[in-house]
Structures are given as C-alpha cells and as structure tokens.
C-alpha cells in the first residue's frame, strides 16, 4: 500500500509540473516545423532545421512579416509518424501556428496530410513524393521537385546516350520507393527496359551482392534512387566489381558529402538536381541566381559545412510562407493558404514557383538541371 501511495504521489507531481507551463506572448507570428532532425532521416532534417533557423533570424532582422517578428517552433520527429501526428496536433491547436513546414519524409507527410486539411492549416512539405499534392488537398503544398520530372529527365538523358536496358536500385525509404515507382512508370514511354529493380535497406553498408545480381543482367546503366549514405557506397561497389556502365542518381545526391565519401568513384555520376549545387556557374540572368548564391553563402559561412538541396527545400518552404504572409489579406490560416496558392514567379532554391489551384508543387521540369561530378565537384552535364 505504501508503495502504491508513493507511486500515485509521484504521478500527481509529474502531472502538475507538466501543466505548469505558461502561455507565451501573442506578439509574434508562430510558424511550426516538424523535421526529422535526428534518426534515420537526419540527412534531410538536420540541414533543413539549420536552414530555417538561420533564415528566420535573417527575416526577423529585416523586419519580419510586415513588422511582426516570426517565431519558429521546430519539433524533431526523428522520422516517427506517431510523433509527427502528435506534434502536428500540438502545433495546430496549442501553438496556433499559421503554417507548418515539413515533415522531412513522405511517409510522415502523408500521415498528417488529412489532419492539416481537416483543421485548415497550411502545410508546406519538404518531402518529394507525388502523393502529397495528388490528389490536391487545398491546404497542403510542397517545395521539392516532383519525382516524375527527375525520372523523365534521367530517361531523356539515357535516350540521348542510346541506353535501353537498365538496372534500378533504390533505398527502402519513402523517397527511394516513390522514385522507383516513377522510374517503373515512365520507362516504357521512353523505350527503356528495367531488367531488375530492387530496394536495399536505408542503413545498407555493402551492396556488392545486389550489384552482382544486377551485373548478371548485362545492363547498360544503373540508376540509384536514395537519400541515404548508400549513395556513395553504390559507386564504390560498382567500381570494385569492375562495372563500367554509367551510374545515374536521383536528386537525392545533392549533397557534396556524398561525393567526398565516394571519392574517385563519384566522378562521372549523372543526376538531375536543382541549381543550388552549381549556383556559381549560372549566368547572372538566371532568376534564381541571387537567391541561390545568397542562401549558399549564408549557410556555408554560418555552419561551416556545404549547403545541400535538402536544406534548400526548407528554405523555400519558409520563404514561401513568409512571402505569402506579407501579401495575404490577414494572417489567418485561410488567407495565408489563398496567398500561397496565388503565389507565382517566386524564385526559390528549387526553381521558380508558380502555384495554382491544381498545382501545389509549383515547379516545372525546367527547375531541374542535369549535373555530373567532375574531379570531385558538381558541374553542369
């Protein structure tokens, strides 16, 4: 009995401390973010989180949204859907944010898509899958380029190289699976045969067995679609197995760390990506150039690490919300949503955004460029 009383006493104590948290002041404009800062998708979430923290400071220094400071509330979901759901409910109801940035992964985004739609809270996702904006939910937007554009660009490049038979490997993550699906969907249109398509674990460290299996199919090229470190293991393992066919990667390769980790083996990899990686090479007439160079320099000088396209997606999400909020009739969620949907010609890091009623991604295929790796650096193909 004594034990039980002690237990219940602690229980009440815990609960009362939990409720003791006071409410914040109402002056600021709250924007929520659910990002996988740690855990299996930290390759996405960590740069995203760093980026929006930096950008929010810049925006506030420049006067915020029409004079009101913005307050970012970043929640780390560690790529767990149940946490993403819990956090989304918190942000919507408790913190009363005007919009939510993220989540980083497609799976989490799909879990909270209907929630944001039901409670009329604008969600600007940093995840790639097409399902996020198809069917169009009136409150759900996304910033990364569509998977299908990437798949089509890869196939167009293959057509010009005369490649007809390929092998596909993809990470078993939301990003990898969605990409593999798009490749399989568009391959017939471009007259390309996929001899073998397989996924590997996101934590995979050795892919020689899988690549041996693909090599046995006499493919003319390999496509690897992932965001995980295995992106630099695939090229290494291919060279090690003596596979000389070209390697295509997805836009998930847009992080120079992967090139460094793959070393010599990275040279010659072909992949479509946003223009952030080659910002300095762009002509001054490019509408994105100013944004890209500004983001890249600010990020790299502040965090002392190279900017990646993933961080860029979060940069776009926050700047789109802020830009729309400045133009919106009021800071209500509904007006903000309308303002985002009518945003056109907005240069972000991923491309020039043109949102409309039917297009909540807002990017065209021209937002991507075909890049390659030359002497350990990104270059236009």
């Amino acid at each position: 009995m004594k034990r039980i009383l002690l237990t219940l006493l602690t229980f009440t104590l815990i609960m009362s401390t939990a409720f003791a948290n006071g409410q914040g002041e109402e002056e600021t404009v709250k924007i929520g973010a659910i990002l996988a800062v740690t855990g299996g998708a930290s390759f996405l979430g960590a740069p995203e989180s760093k980026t929006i923290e930096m950008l929010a400071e810049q925006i506030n220094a420049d006067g915020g949204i029409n004079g009101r400071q913005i307050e970012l509330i970043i929640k780390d979901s560690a790529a767990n859907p149940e946490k993403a759901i819990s956090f989304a409910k918190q942000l919507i109801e408790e913190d009363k944010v005007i919009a939510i940035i993220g989540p980083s992964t497609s799976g989490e985004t799909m879990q909270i898509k209907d929630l944001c739609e039901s409670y009329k809270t604008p969600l600007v996702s940093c995840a790639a899958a097409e399902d996020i904006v198809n069917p169009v939910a009136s409150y759900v937007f996304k910033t990364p380029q569509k998977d299908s554009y990437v798949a089509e660009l890869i196939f167009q490049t293959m057509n010009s190289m005369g490649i007809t038979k390929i092998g596909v490997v993809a990470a078993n993550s939301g990003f990898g699976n969605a990409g593999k699906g798009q490749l399989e969907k568009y391959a017939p249109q471009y007259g390309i045969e996929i001899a073998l398509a397989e996924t590997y674990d996101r934590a995979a460290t050795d892919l020689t067995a899988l690549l041996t299996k693909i090599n046995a199919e006499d493919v003319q090229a390999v496509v690897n679609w992932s965001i995980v470190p295995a992106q630099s293991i695939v090229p290494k393992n291919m060279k090690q197995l003596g596979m000389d066919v070209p390697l295509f990667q997805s836009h998930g390769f847009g992080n120079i760390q992967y090139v460094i980790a793959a070393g010599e083996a990275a040279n010659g990899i072909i992949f479509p990506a946003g223009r952030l990686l080659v910002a300095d090479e762009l002509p001054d007439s490019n509408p994105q150039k100013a944004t890209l160079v500004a983001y890249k320099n600010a990020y790299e000088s502040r965090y002392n690490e190279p900017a990646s396209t993933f961080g860029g997606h979060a940069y776009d999400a926050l700047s789109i919300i802020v830009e729309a909020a400045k133009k919106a009739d009021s800071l209500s969620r509904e007006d903000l949503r309308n303002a985002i949907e009518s945003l056109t010609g907005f240069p972000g890091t991923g491309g020039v955004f043109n949102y409309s009623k039917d297009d909540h991604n807002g990017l065209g295929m021209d937002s991507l460029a075909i890049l390659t790796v030359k002497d350990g650096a990104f270059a236009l193909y």
Partner: protein
Amino acid sequence: MTSEQILQYIFSGITVGSIYALVAIGYNIIYNTTGIINLAQGEFVMLGGMIAYSLSQIMSLVPAVVLAVLITGAVGSLIEIVFIRRMKKSSVLGMIVITIGISIIIREIALLIWDEQIRALRFFTGNEISSIDILGARISPQVLWIVGVTALIVMALYLFFRFTLTGQAMRACSSNTRAAKLCGIRTSRMVNLSFMLAAGIGALGGCLVSPLTQTHYSMGSELAIKGFIVAILGGLGNPMAAVAAGLLLGLIESFSISFLPMVYKDVISILILLVILVLKPSGLFGSRQTSSLKDF
C-alpha cells in the same frame, strides 16, 4: 549462376561476415570474463571509424588508426569503471538494459561531436576505384585488409588466451571467478582488460570497414544486433565459433540476395538462425553440457 558469380557472392558474404565476426568476438571477450552481453559493442566500431577519420585529417593513416584503437580501448575501460563495476548482483535483463542505455548515450555524444554526416576513412591501399581480379571475381583491396586483419586478430587472440599469463588469467575468470580470485588473480582488473580489449578490437574493425561502408553516428545499433545474433549462433563464450558463425551469416545473407529481393535478406537469415536456435539451444558450436552449467 556462373562460377564467377558464385565466387562473387562468396566474397561479398565473407566481407560482411568478417565484420559481424569482429563484433561478435568483442561480445565473447566481455562475456567470458563477466557473463555480460555488452550491447554497446557496435558503438565501439563506430567510435573507431570516427576517431580515426578525425585524426587522419592531421596525421597519416597508420598512427591515426593506432591512436583510434587506443582511445576507444580507453573508452571501453572507462565504461567498465564508471558503469559496469557499480552494477552489483544484477540480472541478465538489468545488464542488457544498462548496456543498451550506454550505447544510446555513446551514439548521442557521437552525434554532438561528428553531426549526422557520413565519414569515410582513406583506403589503406589503392582508392575507391581500385579492384583486384581473383578467378574472375572482383574485389576491392580493402576487402583483403578486412579479411586478413580479422584472421590475424583471431590468431593473436588464440595465442593470447592460450599462452600468455594474462590470457590464461582471463580464461580462469571465465570458468570460475571465485576460484580465480582465490588463486590470486585480480578479477576486477581482468574484467577491465576485457572491456579494453573488446573496445579496441571493435575500433580496429571500425577503421577497417570505414573506407568501404563509411562511418555514421547511428551505424552501431545495426552492427550490435547482427553481432549479437552471431555470438549467440556460435554459442556464447566461444570467440572462434563466433568467427565461423559470422562468416556463415554473411554467406547466407549474400546468397539469399541472389534469389530473393534484398529487402527480405534479414528475414531469411534470421529465420534460419531461429530454427537452428530452437533445434540446438546451445548455439551452433556450443555444447549442451557447458551451456547448462553457465549462468545466463
């Protein structure tokens, strides 16, 4: 399947299997002196790779690896002094839980120090694109390093436990702690030594695989699980059997990929292991008599 392909799968299996074996050897060394399965063993592999990478920025490869092994060994020893030594009369479950806790803490500290980016150590010979032809199969020179050094470690351990006084003392602790104490062996020092040794071997493994598999702060838990499975499969307390079990698991995994989608790789291998375990609960190479005497 052509013979080259079969050979290729075998090489792939041996590479992966050697890594598992190295982790499992670490488990066994600690288990033998303490009866503890140290689930933080995978973190030593990660630490070895990370520390060696950071050091290799300011020095050449060999001293970086040696220092990384020594530093990780010291970490292992510290963990024993700070945590394990204070755990008196703890249950198997308690030990499993605390080593899981320790592994989480090491991982989070690694995240703070090295962030979420991947690191790859330089290749010991050649570079990312070098490849050696063996009977039609191709492997990276680093694979030879991994397999070779693993073999050396196994031999050195065998000689150490067999012929050195310290090694014999450690074995004495394992067969009967109290008797060992009565014979004047300082068992606490032996326990500490076993943590140091296990951490050092893990770290060396981490350096060996880093060029190929790369090092990431969260790589430890996956390795810890695979190493645990291998150690159990071989029969706890038998480092040599762990090597055989490790190679076996690697080969099963590698060949399962050849006829099944890779996503089910772990399903196949673990299913096989479970069946083995149920048929022979003392592990593949353990004997029923000794296992029934041991206190699990």
